[in-house]
Each structure stands twice: as structure tokens, then as C-alpha cells.
């Protein structure tokens, strides 16, 4: 790192900018330089690389690489497994996001509604967020076990239907979804708690004087509208994280049974690192990236429209 970058006290020779500004510019580049280099090396460069790679025919370890145009994407379009993965991923997101967002909101509201036990409940619900998902996934695997698993034992006791949750193609994805909800709930709760705390108390008082003092009225007139930006933020974050589902699929179901739990990232992993079809996997990555960017764009538009509160 450069040292002694103190700004010179007096102008030496006339330059286009004052020497102070020149030294400041140098300092700026020097301090930010390493980070910029790394950012391009590790993030932006490879991201561009992936896009480029998706237009080639390269497989891992192949001696030559050739331009293939949109061949990978054409293949993607006709790939039954791809459409299955996409459908599964979207279904997973559609299942986990509303559930974890609204449960998180409900829990946050309940916690804020009383004085006692806040710290305890916050800890209880946030605990899963810090846990190592894979280790807990194994616990869930046991819980979903068709005979000795807790889930089926409880359901049987209640007289409800049971099945082999993880091996049944109709339920496997949603069983994984339950694990996802379990882990996301606590994070959403904390974000909503922050949003709730940010609502000024005198808004509620003004509403009480104006006539809105019942629990329902307070929620509809003050809480829900003020949470608008928080809600958009939480939904987007949860959705993006849901899109990135991989761990549970890789360890518990390996995409099965019959591709019932094959998700975008898992297929990308398989194509790129099991089948070594790097270019094809790159194309999958680009589709993945496109969806994430779409989600983020949707968030910005929504936030822009709703949150002009200042």
C-alpha cells in the first residue's frame, strides 16, 4: 500500500487541477484499486465469462473451444429436464416465499404486540437462520422418514394421511420447501421487527384520535401501509434466496425422484460438474441470472411506486 499521501500544502507548479485534487485522486485510485481488481477478477469478469462461455461448445478439459452461437440455448429450449427444473424452481419459490414472508410478518406482529418474552421468542425464531442447513437437513430427513419419522408419527396420531415425503414425487419438492420456510422465517421476522420499530408512535396516536383505535383499524390504516417498503424488500430477498435453493436438493433428494426436485442450480451443477458440459451449464447459469435480475428489477419498480414517503 502506498504511504504518506498527505495533501501538499502549497501549489507547486500550475497544473490543470490543483495539486491537492491530484493527490486526492491518486489516493482514491490507490485505496480502491485492489478492491476493483479483485471485483473484476472474482465477480464481474467471471460473470461476463459465463455469458460468453454459454455461446461456445466447450466441455471441461476439451483441448479446443469453438463458437457455437445460440446452440446451447436452442438445446435448452428443447430440454425437458430444463423446463422441469424451471417449473420446480418457480413452484418452490411460489410455495416458500408467501409462507415464510407472512409467517415472519405474523410472528413479528405477535412479538411486538406484547411486552413479555420478546427476547426469548426472537431467539427461538432466529435460531434456525444461524444453523448449518445441511446438518439440519439430515434431521429433517429423519423426521420425514416414512415409519419412524416424527412427522408421520404425529400425522398418524392425528389420523391424517401419511406418505414417504421425500420419495414421493408429488410431495418431495414441498417437503424441501418446508425446510426452506423453516430457515427463512427467522430472518424475515427480524427484518419485519425492524420495520415495525421504525413506525413512529405518534402516527398511531394521531390515528387513535382520528378514530382508528381498534386492532384491525390500526393495522389497516397505519401498520400495513407503513410496512410497504419493508414488505417489498423482504419478499425480494426471500425470493432471490429461494431461487438459489441447492443444498437440500443436493443432499436429500439429488434432484429426484424422477427430477421432481430438480431445480435450476442443481441442474447447472450436474451439467457442469458431473457431466462436464461447461458451456451448457453456463447457459443454465445465464437463465438463472436473468431470473434473479428480473426479480430485482421488479423490486425496484415496486419500491419506486409505493415508497415515495420521504
Amino acid at each position: 500500500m502506498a504511504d504518506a499521501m498527505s495533501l501538499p500544502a502549497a501549489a507547486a507548479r500550475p497544473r490543470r487541477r490543483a495539486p491537492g485534487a491530484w493527490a486526492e485522486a491518486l489516493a482514491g485510485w490507490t485505496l480502491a484499486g485492489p478492491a476493483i481488481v479483485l471485483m473484476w477478477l472474482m465477480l464481474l469478469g467471471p460473470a461476463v465469462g459465463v455469458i460468453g462461455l454459454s455461446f461456445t461448445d466447450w466441455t471441461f478439459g476439451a483441448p479446443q473451444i469453438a463458437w457455437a452461437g445460440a446452440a446451447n440455448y436452442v438445446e435448452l429450449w428443447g430440454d425437458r429436464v430444463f423446463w422441469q427444473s424451471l417449473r420446480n424452481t418457480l413452484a418452490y419459490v411460489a410455495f416458500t416465499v408467501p409462507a415464510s414472508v407472512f409467517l415472519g410478518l405474523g410472528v413479528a406482529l405477535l412479538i411486538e404486540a406484547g411486552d413479555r418474552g420478546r427476547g426469548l421468542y426472537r431467539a427461538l425464531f432466529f435460531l434456525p437462520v444461524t444453523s448449518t442447513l445441511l446438518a439440519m437437513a439430515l434431521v429433517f430427513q429423519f423426521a420425514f422418514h416414512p415409519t419412524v419419522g416424527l412427522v408421520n408419527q404425529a400425522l398418524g396420531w392425528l389420523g391424517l394421511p401419511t406418505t414417504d415425503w421425500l420419495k414421493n414425487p408429488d410431495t418431495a419438492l414441498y417437503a424441501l420447501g418446508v425446510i426452506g420456510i423453516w430457515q427463512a422465517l427467522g430472518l424475515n421476522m427480524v427484518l419485519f421487527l425492524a420495520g415495525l420499530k421504525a413506525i413512529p408512535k405518534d402516527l398511531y396516536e394521531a390515528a387513535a384520535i382520528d378514530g382508528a383505535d381498534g386492532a384491525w383499524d390500526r393495522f389497516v390504516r397505519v401498520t400495513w401501509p407503513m410496512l410497504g417498503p419493508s414488505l417489498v424488500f423482504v419478499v425480494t430477498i426471500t425470493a432471490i434466496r429461494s431461487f438459489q435453493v441447492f443444498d437440500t436438493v443436493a443432499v436429500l433428494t439429488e434432484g429426484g425422484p424422477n427430477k421432481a426436485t430438480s431445480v435450476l442450480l442443481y441442474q447447472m451443477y450436474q451439467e457442469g460438474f458431473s457431466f462436464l458440459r461447461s458451456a451448457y451449464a453456463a447457459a443454465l447459469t445465464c437463465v438463472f441470472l436473468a431470473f434473479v435480475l428480473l426479480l430485482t428489477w421488479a423490486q425496484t419498480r415496486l419500491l419506486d411506486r409505493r415508497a415515495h414517503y420521504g
Partner: protein
Amino acid sequence: MARLTLTGIRKSFGATAVLHDVALDIHDGEFVSLVGPSGCGKTTLLRIVAGLDHADQGRIAIGDTVVDALPPKARDIAMVFQSYALYPYMTVRQNLALPLVMRRLSRAQRLPLLGRWWPGAGARRAAIDAEVQRVAAPLGLAPLLDRRPAQLSGGQRQRVALGRAMVRQPQVFLMDEPLSNLDAKLRVATRTEIAQLHRRLEATFVYVTHDQVEAMTMSDRVALMMDGRVLQFAPPQHIYDDPADLRVAQFIGTPQINTLPATRDEGGLTVAGRHWPLALPPEAGARPQLAVRPEWWTVQPAGTPQARPGVVEGTLAHQELLGAETLLHVRVDSVAETVVARVDPAQARTLALGAPVSLATARVLAFDAAGHRVPQAEWMGVRRLAVAHG
């Protein structure tokens, strides 16, 4: 009628007592200020009147109705908050309409989407809109009705808060330091507007502030509070001329009133080493305190006959030339704070810093050692001049 009566209000937060036995009788249509230093309990009292907090003991009546058990919305009051508390996600129009919407539309008619088509909703909403226009026009809000609070200036937001309070035509208006978020120039202009508003609406206003100038200029009567008690409740001039407590005298008036300790002596009092022929009744005690407003002093030139009976001598520590008047800061022995006199610039012209100065007064307020006012104080003997009002 909107008479507001408070009796025996007591309030503690945990172990700390915040209000001690407060009683006020506010007439219909009066503008009353609750003024005092921070922590004196004025905001707590206002919130209790509004129903946002509950007194531990005491009774509040608006008109003939005892309102202690009623929630805020049922008390027929409106409040302007210090931060205005406008709903940021609603337009000005919606902000102004909300109190009426909550009152006049049934729950079904209020539903977000369906409510619009509920029978009867249309007519009521139209009536509400008309009232919103009626309130918005004199406040200058008509062109702003479709904006959001974030797009308004501080002064405009304040007027929206006022409008929202007015739209329900309540009996009592409560205001919690509504001017404190405005800059100085705007504050003066808005002060006048609020006073005019009061005259136009002919409603009862209760106005909390820590600024004595606001309290004095706007109110019919001022309730000066300190440490959870109402020290005096009287018209502004009365509070100025005839304070009931030394703390009242010290809080009102700029520069602050001069306090002079005194001891009794033969034929009067000894004040700062000089004899004052001032007679006080026995209730004043052995160590009374005297207070003299800065504008009651004149400079007593050396070697001239004593024009006024109360004289102090000291050295000139500092002068402040204000143009229309000059403030003299005189250090007097045995008086802790410098004595400040407000004099004509001509009187001060000949004085030099560090030079000896004599100040004389014919008007004085007397208090006992605990600060209670002693009304009967009379100059004795020579030439009965202006005396303290009894």
C-alpha cells in the same frame, strides 16, 4: 359548550411523580398556553386531556361530560402533534378526510376496494370531500391536495396538521409545540396565523410550549407549570406584572428579572449594603427576596439627589448596545448574578467599563425566602412614588 375542567390530576411514571394535583378551569373559547421548562409535565398533561395517557387520580370534564373513561376518539378533541404525525402514504386530501371517514362511514363502507360501491358510501364520501375543500381553502392547501407530505415544506405540513384537526370541528384543540420544528421567521408568521385561526373558529385551544414569547403573545390566559405543578394561571400581562412566585417572575421576561437578597433592618431592608425604605409584612420572613425588572432601573448619576428610593451600587462589567436601548451589566457586591438594567442609550453614553455605577428603582416585587409572593410592600416616608401593585 366547550369548557374544559381539570381537577386533582396526579400522575406518576413508576416511582417518579410527574403531576401533582393539577387543577385548571378553562373557559369556552379560551386560548390557554401550558408553558414551562422541559420536564415540567405540560406535555403529559396535554396527553392526559387527549386520552393518550391516563391520570392516576383526578377528573377531566369537557363541557358537562366527564371524559376520563372515554377513548380519545370519543372526546371530541383534536390534536396537532409536534412532528405533525401526517400519514406519509396518503395524499393531503386523504389525510384531511381520514377523521371524517372513520366517523361517518361504516366499516363496510370503509373497505379498501369494495367499500366504494357499498350503498350510501358514494353520497357520504362526496359530503366528506366537500368538507375537506372547505377546510383546505382558507389554509391555502387547495393546490396541494393531491400531494404527499414528503413533497411539502415544513410550513405546509403544519397547515395540513391544523386542517386535519379542524375538519372535525371539535370542541377542544390541543397543540403540542406545533411551532418548534419551524425556522424562526416562519414561526413568527405562523404564530399570528394560529391566533387568527382561534378567533375565527371560536373554539377552545390548549397550547403547549416551552417558549414564553409564544405563550405571552397568543394566549388569553397562561398556565405556567414547573415540576408538575401549576404555579400561576392568569392573563399574560398579569403574570408579568403580578407573578405569584419568584420562579414565575424569573421564567417570564427577557432579560431575566434581577433577584436581590435582602435582610431586615431598622426601618426597612438592607439590600446589597444599602438601605431601602421598604416595609414588608411579617409573613415575608427574615430573609426576603426582591426582584426588579431590568426596565425599572435608571442610572443614578453621581452627585445628583436620589430620585428613587431603591438604589444599588456597583461597577459596570459589560454593556450591550442594542440600538433602541442599552443593557448594562453591573456587578454588585453580595449579589451573585450581575444586575442587568435596560436603559435609554443616552443614559449609558457617559459610562465606562469598570467605572462605578448607581442604579435606582421605584418599582419592586417582594418574595419570601421560599419564593412566594408578598403583595403588600410599601415604600415608606418620602414621596410616595409608583409602588408595587398589591
